[in-house]
């Protein structure tokens, strides 16, 4: 801030004197539900000062449109999940699709429930430091296509923390971190979404201690073409429970998620340098773990900078039971040659010929599978098709022994108040 000259102060005082009805700075802002919740809460978000805490008391706040926040370092805090409820069922056409849209750094939201948004639940876009803690995003009733796409949705954000939260009913992904950097997703519970947790086109993520159950797919680590930020990498998925993700896919056709086979446990697609360890994977009927290139979707794309191959994946020390017994969708077609079932870990075997050195992939691009108990494996060898040959699938793990030379590092988030780490 510039130094103020005395004369400038006089001028400001004069201005304040004739405004009438200015805003006072006085401790945390505490708001209670009333008939005017849209205006009350939105006004508080607009007039907040950096560092402010906006407290929402117990009760149901009913909104008629989106809420939006563009002031740095503001915390929105309720009095607990299912106690403080932000209900967007009465959202009007033209008043925005999301529940809460945030475009400012240092956002924290905690201890409340966001209900029935027409679009995404909470979207944070293009910022640094976003924290979602002990919140719930939910859509009433059985999961349906008309529900919003994403529950918790940071996109193009650096330093994302999503912890101890719950999402149910998203028609795309419950927790969706897109085009972001430096991410921790831990201790969350996601169920009855199309995808439980999706890390997409992102760089550096630790996904651990989560429970993903009864989604169409549990946890997805994806990289997709034709986006401004692409070729995601460096993600660790560990200590999660990924079980019984056999919910019917209720995504709208056209979206990539609508093609996700029911019964997907963990799917790593077109990413690079991903470590998967110490997870419990159970009873995901298509496959417990799939390691796939984008080519397997058979979708065309027009993006010279995009790398469709999945490379540098290290899967070790996980525990498996059940699953793969009734592959669905794309999985059903691919599994026909194996009698209609899949092993625990399925790798499509697409290898980029352009990256081969002396007929082999460099070590950092290898697919490694080790110490997963008696888990079984298949390499579908679909890469042979690129050379005009017949694929020769194999189950032998010998070709996939070893580990990543430089596995992803532990994620350390920028501390509160840090600035300048934006994408």
């Amino acid at each position: 801030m510039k130094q103020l000259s005395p004369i400038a102060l006089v001028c400001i005082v004069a201005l304040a004197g004739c405004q009438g009805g200015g805003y006072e700075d006085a401790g945390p802002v505490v708001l209670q539900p009333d008939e005017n919740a849209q205006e009350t809460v939105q006004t508080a978000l607009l007039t907040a000062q950096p560092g402010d805490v906006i407290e929402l008391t117990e009760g149901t706040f009913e909104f008629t449109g989106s809420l939006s926040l563009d002031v740095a370092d503001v915390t929105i805090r309720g009095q607990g999940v299912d106690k403080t409820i932000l209900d967007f069922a009465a959202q009007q056409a033209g008043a925005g699709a999301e529940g809460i849209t945030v475009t400012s750094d240092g956002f924290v939201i905690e201890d409340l429930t966001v209900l029935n948004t027409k679009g995404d639940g909470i979207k944070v876009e293009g910022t640094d430091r976003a924290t979602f803690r002990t919140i719930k995003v939910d859509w009433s009733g059985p999961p349906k296509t008309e529900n919003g796409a994403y529950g918790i949705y940071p996109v193009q954000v650096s330093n994302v923390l999503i912890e101890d939260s719950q999402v149910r009913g998203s028609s795309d992904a419950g927790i969706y971190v897109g085009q972001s950097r430096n991410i921790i997703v831990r201790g969350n519970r996601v169920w009855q979404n199309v995808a439980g947790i999706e890390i997409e086109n992102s760089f550096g993520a630790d996904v651990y201690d989560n429970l993903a159950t009864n989604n169409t797919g549990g946890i997805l680590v994806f990289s997709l073409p034709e986006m401004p930020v692409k070729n995601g990498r460096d993600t660790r998925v560990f200590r999660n429970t990924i079980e019984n993700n056999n919910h019917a896919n209720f995504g709208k056709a056209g979206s990539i998620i609508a093609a996700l086979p029911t019964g997907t446990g963990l799917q790593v697609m077109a990413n690079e340098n991903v470590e998967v360890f110490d997870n419990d994977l159970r009873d995901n009927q298509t496959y417990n773990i799939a390691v796939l290139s984008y080519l397997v979707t058979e979708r065309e794309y027009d993006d010279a900078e995009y790398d469709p191959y999945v490379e540098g994946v290290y899967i070790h020390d996980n525990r498996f039971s059940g699953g793969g017994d009734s592959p669905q969708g794309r999985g059903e077609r691919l599994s026909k040659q194996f009698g209609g079932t899949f092993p625990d870990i399925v790798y499509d075997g697409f290898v980029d010929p352009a990256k081969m050195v002396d007929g082999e992939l460099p070590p950092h691009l290898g697919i490694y599978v080790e110490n997963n108990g008696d888990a079984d494996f298949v390499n579908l060898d679909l890469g042979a098709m690129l050379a005009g040959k017949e694929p020769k699938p194999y189950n032998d793990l010998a070709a996939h022994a070893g580990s990543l030379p430089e596995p992803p590092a532990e994620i350390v988030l920028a501390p509160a108040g840090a600035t300048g780490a934006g994408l």
Partner: protein
Amino acid sequence: MTRTGSPWPALLGAAGLVLWAGCAPGPVEFTGLRDAPQELSAFGLFEGEPADHVPAEGVIPYDLTTPLFSDYTEKLRFVRVPAGQAATYHEEASFDFPVGTILAKTFAFPSDEHATGRRLLETRILAHLDSGWIGLPYVWNDEQTEATLKIAGGLLPAKWEDQWGSVREQGYLVPNANQCKGCHEATASGVRPLGAKARYLNRDLTYAHGSENQLVHWGAAGVLGGAPKLDAAPRSPVWNDPATGSLYARARAYLEINCAHCHNPEGPARTTGLDLSWSADDPVDLGVYKFPVAAGRGSGDRLYGIVPGRPEESILMYRMLSLDPGVMMPELGRRRVHSEGVDLLEEWISAMPEPEKGRRHRDPAG
């Protein structure tokens, strides 16, 4: 701290004058949302009855070749550049307006209950402060004598008889101050004006003294500097006037003014990879055979943004035709389908040839 209007040296010797000026009507000084004028009259934009919207001295009315669709409202636009200063002309981007500039846009519905023949709903102010541009929504009272700042926006009842004599009743949405930013913000430049570009202003307008091209008028009034001769200035076609441009050009103008404020490489919808700005030239950027990124159910069971020749398979049409907040585009400020705009884009997509290279149509079943 920020200021608008008079330069500091003049203030140093005239503290008394500053105190007086701070409270007087006319050009107003403020630093942001928290000390913004509570009443529109503080800006001193109009003389006489406020409802008549007669521009005060130094305030210039303007209009655009192709405007944003706003639920069939009438829109009245005004600009005031600080006395003695001028905006700088740009061929592509918005003009560079000096600090202190005010752009005002009033939304109104036709109404027989008012002598002016219209009911003023809202006036949006875009003010250029030292700290950048700020958007402020002012809502008109029933008496039409004053508009009051309503930073949280809201839903206004609106009822009027249309040109065919049927009574129309619909809510009118006032955006909140952040939603002003949502459309007007870009990552590099921050909040900026959208319509005040050469190609949209390059048209005639009827002024008190007669009809004149707006760029010529602004130049003569001394509020715009650096403009080329008129025949060298670009002109956007009028979206619904085939005499002003080809189907392609009119569709692109419509897409830019209605969609590109978000759908450009620096806008809020940059994460989708869809670029509908005037300068976009890659078919995939425009949505041709482009898969949706984060449309969710907005895809409407359709595979691509645009399928040449098949508007009924194009996500773009699906979202224009929707009034569901989770599907519709634009998602802000529209509560009705713009049938005429839909017709234009349907015609454009129907006539669109397959791209010469890149993806081509492939039946999902085949």
